[in-house]
């Protein structure tokens, strides 16, 4: 296990690289879902406010 974490001495480079990549993946998922939720909320609010056409 320690060997695995040590990555043959390259731990300081390998793990940050993985961390950054998965942070980017996580952020993308978060932003995409947030964009959709925001869009849904806005559209619902608009419909509820009675300004929308029938």
């Amino acid at each position, binding site marked *: 296990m320690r060997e695995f974490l040590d990555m*043959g001495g390259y731990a300081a*480079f*390998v793990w*940050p690289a993985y961390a950054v990549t998965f942070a980017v993946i996580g952020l*993308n998922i978060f932003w*995409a879902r947030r964009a959709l939720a925001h869009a849904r909320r*806005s559209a619902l609010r608009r419909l509820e406010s009675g300004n929308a*056409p*029938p």
Partner: protein
Amino acid sequence: MNFTWFHRLGSPPYTYALARRLTPWFAWPAALLILAGLWGGLVLAPPDYQQGDGFRIIYVHAPSAWMSLMVYTSMAVAAAVGLIWRIKVAHAAAASCAPIGASFTVAALVTGSLWGQPMWGTYWQWDPRLTSELVLLFLYLGYMGLRAGIEDTQRADRASALLAVVGVINVPIIHYSVTWWNSLHQAPSVMRLAKPTMAASMLVPLLMMLLGFTLLFAALLLVRLRAEILTRERTSSWIREALRA
């Protein structure tokens, strides 16, 4: 050849519903492939005889770099479709691609830089690949900047679409000139990993990661596309029914 599917995709309500149904079919396989690729790449694959365990960065760097290029190409294709056939959904798709592609370009640059330090002894090297990635980041930023600068949605769509198409034509030219410039100055060896002779145990996880990231892009695109369509079509009558679902 029946092109009904193409014209159907141009209809926002149709594509909205389709995107909603398809997302899990891309998201879950993506998650599985990425996890499997991680396991294969971090645990199962043997260390490289030259780079030791440091080579494992390839399992995040190569997919990120692949994403940055593939997403830009997809964005340009969607933009071209939007320009030629005047399909709003295509423009919405192109807009959805940009932030995804830009963030993975940053990931490619950071992971490439982290890979460079143990391999070349420096965090940054002006090798053709990294330099081209950096230029690609600027192309993304320019695209997003142009979109943000134009208020009218339709004009922003068409202007940024033209920019994307001009950009995609330039990417090979820029890459060629950077490679040529680099070869002149005899920079240290490009990040090679003896690709043809890469062992299957190393290659398979890489392919899984590449495919997993691609499916992830599809899932992310579908989610963002729905958000875009909702925002653009919020005055349309089909929204009420779609939101109820």
